[in-house]
């Protein structure tokens, strides 16, 4: 075969491979949701982050408005310190609150942010004070047993 024809076929071959790779990255993978846009970081402290992982979504009203960045342990307050990378387009008031929620019954955990009523918005590096930790199954069971026991005692009195 002539050298030029071979080069054309080889070029097509490599192009096909690149196209497959891009298909896998965008259509099958999560590349399209990786935000390369501008973000600003805020932090929040939690008593228990449960199963929260980095890159978990931060959602408000169910829409993804940011991602969880770093998770670290603060040994002065003995709480978990979570850094959130929020998309710059979405501004939240300074007294917004954070909750750790679970997607579905057995799904991944994510952070839900609820807007407060303050005039001033969160800026880079701010700390969100109102946080609610993840629900731990054992505590729920203890609560349930305790309330059942209290009911039983009231009934017998």
């Amino acid at each position: 075969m002539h050298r030029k024809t071979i080069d054309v076929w080889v070029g097509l071959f490599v192009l096909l491979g690149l196209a497959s790779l891009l298909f896998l990255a965008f259509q099958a993978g999560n590349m399209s949701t990786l935000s390369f846009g501008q973000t600003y970081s805020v932090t929040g402290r939690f008593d228990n982050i449960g199963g929260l992982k980095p890159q978990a979504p931060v959602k408000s009203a169910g829409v993804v408005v940011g991602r969880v960045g770093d998770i670290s342990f603060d040994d002065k307050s003995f709480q978990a310190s979570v850094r959130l990378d929020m998309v710059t387009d979405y501004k939240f008031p300074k007294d917004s609150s954070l909750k750790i929620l679970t997607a579905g019954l057995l799904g991944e955990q994510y952070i839900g942010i609820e807007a407060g009523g303050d005039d001033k918005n969160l800026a880079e590096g701010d700390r969100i004070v109102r946080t609610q930790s993840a629900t731990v199954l054992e505590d729920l069971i203890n609560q349930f047993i305790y309330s059942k026991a209290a009911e039983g005692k009231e009934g017998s009195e």
Partner: protein
Amino acid sequence: MIARFFGYIGCSVREGLAGLGFAIRNFFILMRLSPGAFRRPGLISEQIHFIGNYSLLIIAVSGLFVGMVLALQGYYTLNQYGAEQMLGQVVALALVRELGPVVTALLFAGRAGTSLTAQIGLMKAGEQLSAMEMMAINPIQRVLAPRFWAGVIAMPVLAAVFSAVGVLGGYLVGVKLIGVDEGSFWSQMQAGVDVRADVLNGVIKSFIFGIAVTFTALFQGYHAQPTPEDVSRATTRTVVIASLLVWGLNFVMTALMFNK
């Protein structure tokens, strides 16, 4: 008699080690002579054509069928737990992480590896390599190195095509044939397949497999005895050794890459 038994074991171990060292030394010689091969990219692209383009059909068809079978088997099991929406994620992760690189490497060893070994072995049997040495052309640089780099380039491409066609095959069977919800098929897949952790690791795996399989094929061909019987035995050795290498390397890489 027991002494002879131990002597036999010691001899085999020593010969095995010597063989391994010999192979590694040849690998470094190949690396050293590669820049000369890069100065003639026409040779490399010609080899990519023979190794890659001609393997495309079997890789694509295999990928399609693997994806379709994954979708069928995955659906039967997931349906028992009411989790059939996860079918997309199961098919994509299985392909991208493991089946794409490994099955492509095995097919590549069988198709391209044997043809490389036979080609080089016949060149040696026909004294073409000696003739090249007489003309002061280094046969490793002229013949082996372009084929090596062609194989290393072609393998990741073929693995990507395998995985992509497999995902499409899974889509055809899962969504079109069985009736899994199309939206959740793709969205669960996108939620579960991470570009860095999964797709990139699969590409790295296929790259390493390309090096291992292509080098094995070239080495066996180059060091075969210049007789037709030994050339055919060398092609068998290529497939066996390359397959074992692929499985061993895959286990090591999976253990390294996919531990949370």
